[in-house]
């Protein structure tokens, strides 16, 4: 299938997801994302932001709905028992970075980076190592190749985690609150790396509580609450002068304008 310029890169249609019979997290969520877009998802805790990203990565089962990537549905529910189907071939194009780094603690930095390319893609060790070293240099971690995760700061760990995801040449990156666990003085170095990726037109979807970062990186902002998209528009609108009352309340609260 060929993709015309305006065709959506990601299309999420009436996504429903619940944990058990009583907790509905996503209640019919629709999102479209065009190629080259950088979508920042904001919203109150429990509003379904992280769940959305986890579902897109295929880490959670869904109740109903579908997600397409590049025009191809890769996550949907099927049959009478609504089994979640995940097309792993398509999912391969998506990379994800988590709040808690999730580096493999028993492997050195370079081993963390080359594990997937060597074991999954069949790349030879020398070429993977060369690519990994280049990525580390680019992220200011050239000297840390043989260090273990426990010997790194939170900011360094998160940069390694981003590099590790990039080793698989993703066509879309998902960032799930990647700076939330960091000490304040380490946030900038991680955001800098993500901005660097944005400069190379990497499509990305970012869940963050950092409104400064959201404003700087987003080409579009989605306000998600109660399991649905409440407002969706350019950052100036959603963060600056939101149209929806619920968005306005949230924005005011996080910017401490009114009490």
């Amino acid at each position: 299938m060929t993709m015309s310029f305006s065709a959506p890169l990601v299309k999420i249609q009436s996504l429903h997801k619940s944990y058990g019979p009583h907790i509905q997290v996503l209640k019919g969520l629709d999102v479209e994302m065009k190629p080259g877009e950088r979508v920042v998802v904001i919203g109150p805790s429990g509003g379904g932001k992280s769940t959305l990203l986890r579902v897109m990565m295929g880490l959670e089962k869904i109740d109903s709905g579908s997600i397409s990537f590049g025009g191809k549905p890769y996550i949907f529910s099927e049959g009478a028992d609504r089994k979640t189907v995940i097309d792993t071939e398509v999912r391969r194009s998506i990379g994800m970075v988590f709040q808690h780094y999730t580096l493999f603690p028993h492997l050195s930095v370079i081993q963390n980076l080359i594990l997937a390319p060597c074991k999954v893609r069949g790349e030879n060790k020398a070429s993977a190592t060369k690519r990994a070293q280049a990525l580390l240099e680019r992220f200011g971690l050239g000297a840390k190749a043989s260090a273990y995760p426990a010997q790194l700061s939170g900011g360094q760990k998160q940069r390694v985690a981003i590099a590790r995801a990039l080793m698989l040449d993703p066509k879309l990156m998902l960032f799930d609150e990647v700076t939330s666990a960091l000490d304040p003085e380490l946030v900038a170095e991680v955001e800098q790396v993500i901005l660097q990726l944005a400069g190379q037109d990497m499509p990305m979807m970012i869940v963050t509580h950092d409104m400064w970062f959201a404003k700087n990186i987003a080409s579009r902002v989605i306000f998600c609450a109660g399991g649905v998209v409440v407002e969706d528009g350019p950052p100036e609108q959603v963060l600056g002068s939101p149209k929806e009352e619920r968005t306005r309340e949230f924005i005011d609260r996080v910017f401490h304008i009114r009490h």
Partner: protein
Amino acid sequence: MTLDFSIVLRFQEALALGLWMTIKLTLICVVLGCSLGFSIGLARTSRSALLRAASSIYVEFFRGTPVLVQLFWIFFCLPLILGVELSNLTSGVIALTLYMGAISSETFRASLKSIGPEQLDACVALDLPRRVQVTSVILPQAVLRAVPTLLSNCVSLFKESALVSAVGMADLMFVGQNISNNTARPVEVLTVVALIYFVIAFPLTRAVTLVERRVLAKLAI
């Protein structure tokens, strides 16, 4: 009462043979018991309810009964039930392997459990197939985390192995007891036997602390 430790020297060959039996028995049972323990540890976290039930009955039974009773049962009851003669060494190996399997399975189970679900999230996000998840991510971490406790398990086994003397296996304890009876010099002989056990067990105990500090602190796991 006068003590004459030189008397022990006359029996150094017999003591060496006994020590060799103790070490041989311990090493065989460490290898077999750890393998059994790892399988049982996996079985206890298995999806199959039958496997989980069977493995926990085994573990709880062997942790809940005295090793001496287990030994006697395997030496005297198992041959009657199976209808075959078992050599002393075979019976000793079976008994201590089952004991080691039970205690090390708990060690492995704890180490498997301590690997957080977020490690599996990372595996999925990196598109690692199940086989690679197990061999490259879960297994090495589980084994590394288990090492200090496993070493303690091994030291326990080495000491507990003295119980086989009660069923007539010629280990260090058995030889020592015989010499002490025949020479009527229990203080000298049994003190030396205790020292031999200590000289081997103590460095191993210290090694546990060392491994914990050096290796695991570096990995922070």
